[in-house]
C-alpha cells in the first residue's frame, strides 16, 4: 500500500461559463520514502495535482488517500503536520513584510507548539543558513537563500511528505545544484517522501525513482528511472519530451 494514493482524480475549473478540465482521471501511488516525479508542459495539470492534494483545487471526481485515509474538506491541522508544500517562486511565496523568524515560527504558533526560539535556529542551520538570518526580510536574501527559507518553513511541523512544485526552476544553475543537494540530504536524514513537479527531465531523473509523464491533464506514461535513462518509453509523447531534452543527457564519453 502506498503512502499517497490518488485514484481516478479529476479537477475541473469553471469560469465565465466555461469549463476547463485541468486533470482528468489520473491515478498514481507513491510509496513511503519514495521520490515520485511529475513532468509535462505547462497546462498539463501537474501542479494542479499537488494543489488538489492540499485542498486548493476543485476536485470533481476520484479520491486522494494519505496513509490509507481519504482526505476530508477542509483539510484540518492533522494534514498540515503530515504534508507540506514548497512553491516554485521564492520571491512570491514568502511574505515580504514578515521577518524570516516570523515566517518560520508562524506554523508553530498555529499548531500551539512551544520552543519556537530554538526550533527556528535549528531549522535555519538544517538548511545551511546562518542563524543571523533570522531577523532579515526576504528582500535581503538571494533567490537560493529564499528557497532555503521556504524549505525550512515547510519542514517546521516535521511533515513526512513534501510536495515540491518546481522548487529550483527560478534559480541559477549552481544554486539549483545546491538546493537539489539540500533536498536529497534532508530526504535521507528524515525519511521524507517527495512528490515533485518539474518540467526539467534531468532534474526529475536526478531526484526521483519513478516519474509520471502528463499531457493535457491526463497521465500519458509512468516510467521507472532506469527506463527513462535508457529511453524505454512506449508513448510518442513521452519520447518527444525526452528528445527535446537531448542536451540534458549524460555525455556517453564521460559516463563512469
Amino acid at each position, binding site marked *: 500500500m502506498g503512502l499517497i494514493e490518488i485514484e481516478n482524480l479529476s479537477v475541473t475549473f469553471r469560469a465565465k461559463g466555461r469549463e476547463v478540465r485541468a486533470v482528468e482521471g489520473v491515478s498514481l501511488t507513491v510509496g513511503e520514502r519514495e521520490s515520485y516525479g511529475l513532468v509535462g508542459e505547462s497546462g498539463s495539470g501537474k501542479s494542479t495535482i499537488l494543489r488538489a492534494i492540499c485542498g486548493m483545487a476543485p476536485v470533481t471526481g476520484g479520491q486522494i488517500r494519505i496513509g490509507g485515509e481519504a482526505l476530508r474538506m477542509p483539510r484540518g491541522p492533522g494534514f498540515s503536520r503530515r504534508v507540506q508544500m514548497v512553491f516554485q517562486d521564492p520571491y512570491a511565496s514568502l511574505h515580504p513584510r514578515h521577518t524570516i523568524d516570523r515566517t518560520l515560527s508562524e506554523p508553530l504558533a498555529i499548531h500551539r507548539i512551544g520552543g519556537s526560539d530554538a526550533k527556528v535556529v535549528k531549522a535555519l542551520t538544517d538548511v545551511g543558513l546562518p542563524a543571523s538570518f533570522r531577523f532579515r526580510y526576504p528582500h535581503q536574501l538571494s533567490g537560493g537563500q529564499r528557497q532555503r527559507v521556504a524549505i525550512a518553513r515547510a519542514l517546521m511541523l516535521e511533515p513526512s511528505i513534501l510536495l515540491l512544485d518546481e522548487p529550483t526552476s527560478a534559480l541559477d544553475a549552481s544554486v539549483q545544484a545546491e538546493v537539489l543537494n539540500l533536498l536529497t540530504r534532508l530526504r535521507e536524514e528524515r525519511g521524507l517522501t517527495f512528490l515533485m513537479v518539474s518540467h526539467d527531465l534531468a532534474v526529475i531523473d536526478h531526484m526521483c525513482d519513478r516519474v509520471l509523464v502528463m499531457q493535457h491533464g491526463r497521465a500519458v506514461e509512468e516510467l521507472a528511472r532506469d527506463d527513462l535513462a535508457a529511453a524505454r518509453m512506449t508513448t510518442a509523447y513521452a519520447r518527444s519530451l525526452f528528445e527535446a531534452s537531448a*542536451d540534458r543527457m549524460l555525455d556517453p564519453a564521460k559516463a563512469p
Partner: protein
Amino acid sequence: MSLLEVQNLRVTFDTETGPVQAVRGVSFSLGRERLGIVGESGSGKTMTGRSVLRLIRPPGRIAADRMVFDGQDLMRASERDMRALRGKRIGMVMQDPKYSLNPVMTVGEQLTEGLRRRDRIRGAEARAKAVAALEAVQIRDPDRVMAAYPHELSGGMGQRVMIAMMLIPEPDLLIADEPTSALDVTVQAEVLSILDALVRDRGMGLIFISHDLRLVGRFCDRVLVMFKGRVVEELEARRLTEARHPYTRGLLNCLPRIGGPREPLPGLDRSGDWAKEGAA
C-alpha cells in the same frame, strides 16, 4: 563590416555606499549572427544588453570607449536619435510576458500601437500587419489572440506576442533577454526556430542573453561567458564542451544529467583566483 561594436563598456551605479560596477569593461563585436551572452544572476548580462539601447536609468551610468551601431555612435547620439533607433532598428524582447505586456490593453491594441503612433498606419492595414506578425510566430488563431488581454494567454503565447511585437518594425538587431526561460522545452524549441529563421532569412543580428549554457551552446554561433561584470571566456558555441575557464567548466558540471549518478551535484567553486575582486 560589423553591425555592432562595443569596446570597454562599463555600467556603474552610484549608491549610498559608493559606486557599484555592474559591467566592468566588456568588448565585443557582432555581425549578422547569433551571439550568446551567458552568466548567472548578477553577472551583468542584462545590463550589457540594455546598455546597447541606453536603457539604464540614473543612478546608473554607461561609459564606453566605443559603441557603434551600423556607423552611428551610440555614446554621442541624442535622446531623440536613440528613440528613432529603439524598436525600429534595434528591438528588445524582455524576459517575462507577465510584466512586460500592458495588462489593461488587448494584445491587438498593443501590437498596433507602434504602427499607429510611429508609422501613422491605422485601422485595417495596421491590423493586417499585426495579424501577419502573429502568424509569423506560429500563433494559430491570431484573431482570438488579438482580442485577448495578456492574462488570458499562456506564458508561451505571451512570449510569442512579445517577439511578434518586436518584429513588426523589422529591426536589424534583436536583443533577446532570456526569451525562452519561462517556456517549456517543446515551446522553447519552437520559439528558437522562429528566431533562427529570422536571423537566416532577414539577415538580422541577434544577441541572445540566457543563464542556460546548454541552450546557448546549441543555438548560438558564438558565446560570451560573463561573471561579475566581465567576460571571462569567449568561444565558438560548438566548442562549448572544450571550455577552459574554471567558471564555464563549473557551470557545465553543476547541471544534473539524465542517467547521471545519484551522488551530490558538484557545486560551483568560487574560491579560485579568477573569482577575486579585480581579477582580469
